[in-house]
């Protein structure tokens, strides 16, 4: 049990360039199925350095063809980090990596996401498993494939907060326990700042690639034909995906996801109301029984008989179990995630739209 939390909490995550590429490759290859993998590295005081990664074995979904089992595969892959079979794989792999001098310490796992839909029970369970069983100082890296294809790379590092760890250990998410621990959905995940780091060799390699801005000498030489211009290879040419003005796909997808979340919320709420009605009914029954017993006892006292026990109701009636509120909490966190995402998107896109209008209709912007 992870009672002994280390003194210095992790403050930042440093990702090696290699790991970034490995995660991107794995996640985009597996898209739209969820991809998960393992991270190795070492932790230096409050800084977690992730220096390598490897994907988890793909799970053989029973060979029904087509995309129908996409969901099954997704679920299996999402559960992979805590699957028993993978623990051995992971141990073996770490052993092998240690032989070639890779920092073979467990530092967490990564998963792919689609438009920020990563806050779910699977992720929580995985991260709980990692933080509790394997190593307290582990992170979950989330790579959002769809958002990365829209422009800037989306990579985020998360941990479960100690408060949530405690609550999850007890496995109780009743209203009462939530009141006591004062746990709110905002406190489930802690996001850590993420940095990309390159080795010296890699820096030197990047410098050996042609620069996007041509040098003076290169400018002096004239391109012979039009065709040669469009062919010039330029690997580090800036990527203008961020300037792309595609609004509708993002909006429709986000609203779909939001609607799903509302539905989940609604179901949970109904469950809860059902429970409360059930509870009220049971309690009404208990009161009725108690009153009956009381009057019975009163009449028995008059008849000089020994009173019947008054706490028998505990055996006769059973109060319903309160449904856990974990799902609601996670769902709320998820909605928050969507809302923030839309905010960010709206900020960027409205700027872009005004720019476009200003460009196409000079002078209209003032009106």
């Amino acid at each position, binding site marked *: 049990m992870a009672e002994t939390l280390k003194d210095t909490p992790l403050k930042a995550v440093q990702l090696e360039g290699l790991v970034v590429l490995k995660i991107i*490759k794995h996640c985009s290859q597996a898209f739209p199925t969820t991809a998960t993998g393992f991270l190795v590295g070492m932790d230096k005081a409050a800084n977690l350095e992730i220096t390598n990664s*490897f994907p988890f074995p793909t799970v053989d979904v029973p060979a029904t063809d087509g995309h129908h089992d996409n969901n099954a595969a997704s679920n299996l892959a999402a559960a992979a980090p805590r699957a028993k079979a993978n623990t051995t794989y992971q141990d*073996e792999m770490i052993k092998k990596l240690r032989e070639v001098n890779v920092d073979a310490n467990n530092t967490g796992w990564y998963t792919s996401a689609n438009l920020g839909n990563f806050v779910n029970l699977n992720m929580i369970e995985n991260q709980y498993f990692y933080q509790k069983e394997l190593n307290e100082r582990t992170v979950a890296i989330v790579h959002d494939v769809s958002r*990365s294809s829209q422009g800037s790379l989306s990579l985020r590092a998360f941990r479960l907060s100690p408060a949530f760890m405690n609550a999850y250990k007890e496995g109780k998410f009743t209203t009462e326990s939530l009141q006591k621990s004062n746990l709110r959905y905002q406190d489930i995940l802690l996001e850590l700042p993420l940095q990309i780091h390159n080795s010296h060799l890699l820096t*030197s390699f990047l410098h050996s690639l042609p620069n996007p801005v041509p040098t003076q000498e290169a400018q002096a030489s004239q391109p012979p034909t*039009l065709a040669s211009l469009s062919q010039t290879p330029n690997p580090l040419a800036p990527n203008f995906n961020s300037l792309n003005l595609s609004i509708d796909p993002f909006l429709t997808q986000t609203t779909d996801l939001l609607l799903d979340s509302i539905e989940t919320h609604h179901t949970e709420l109904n469950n809860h109301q059902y429970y409360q009605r059930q509870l009220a009914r049971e309690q009404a029954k208990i009161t009725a029984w108690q009153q009956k017993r009381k009057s019975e006892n009163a009449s028995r006292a008059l008849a000089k008989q020994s009173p019947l026990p008054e706490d028998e109701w505990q055996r006769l009636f059973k109060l319903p179990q309160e449904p856990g509120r974990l799902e609601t909490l996670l769902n709320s966190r998820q909605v928050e995630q969507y809302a923030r995402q839309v905010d960010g*998107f*709206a900020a960027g896109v409205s700027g872009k739209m005004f720019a476009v209008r200003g460009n196409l209709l000079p002078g209209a912007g003032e009106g």
Partner: protein
Amino acid sequence: MIGNKRAKKEGAPMKCQDTHILRDEKDTFSRQTVGAYFSCHLNTSQAMVEADSFLHLARPLGPALPGSQPTTAPLNVIIQPQAIFSILDHSLRRNTDSNTDNERVIGTLLGVRSEDGQEVEIRNCFAVGHTETAEQVEVDMDYQKQMLQFHLKANPKEVLVGWYATSAELNTFSALIQNFYGGQGDGTWPHPAVHLTVTTDAGKEIETRTYISAPVGVTADRAADSAAFTPVPHEIRYGEAEKSGLELIAGAKDDKDRTASVPTDIEALERQIEEVLGMLERVSKYVEAVIEEETPPSSALGQFLLNALALAPKVDPEDIERDFNNHIQDVLVVSYLANTIRTQIDLSNRLATAALTLGAGDGLGGGQTNGTGTEGRERGQRGGRGQRGGGGDRGDRGADRG
């Protein structure tokens, strides 16, 4: 053997003859690779390595199955950047024991082969431990086999395509290892094994080269430790998905700490707008210089710029106005709704936990006070509903202001 095969091939159309001689210390047998032809190698826009025109050499013939037609088609190698990154990382992590002469490290390359076998894409690689002394080389074969299996579990589509080393030198040991990787059974046979060298000498440019090989040697003994390496063209290519990642990584190259942080959407947008502004400035400077007759004009560049200008769409102002209004409304409504939902859910959460504090002071198993407890809870519930409506309104107003 070789002579025979060559004689057979001589009938094929050939434009030139090129001789590649590789001499290793033990084997003074010099080999000729004939049957080469020129082919202009075009770069795609994504290629990272400058590869102008390339000499395509016919693939040297390996031991062919009797009856099967040996292929002599050219081979093209595509390397994904993550493989290179991995190799560089491995090179940094080599053993620095003084007793062994481990200047280079080796590892296995994994990837996919196109159906006709003419294109090999190196997608992945892993390090294999080896020790090399002046007399002998030891490669951890068990390790390589197990790692290969592990990798195949995670990437069933990728196959063994060859091996890499971090020195440009090709020696007897290279040939030995190459023959192992290209061999039957565990090797890549009947396809040729690709050998990739990446130089990682300090203070020098990083150079990548790819080779395939043909067996040579008159006796079996000789053949085991010699090979004719033929350079094959290669390019480093990456997909759309890796572009943003690579850009970010490249963003750290001029930084002193060699670090970069992941930008937010709006920061990325800002950076790109700045970049576009910089490009516009560069172009207008150039155009001005041409007008001032300081720089020689180029018709190709002019044409290119004209084409780019012609891309500006011609749309009715009303259309723009309409589209603009529609879209901005969409964006704002979704953003507003999302935030309203967030507020609602937040409130609902708070009320769910707050409702109990209003009533049922002493919990569920109280027994005696059950009646009042229920009433209290019901009141809380009702109050909660009322408050929620109010809260929603408040949230709406808040969003309106925002």
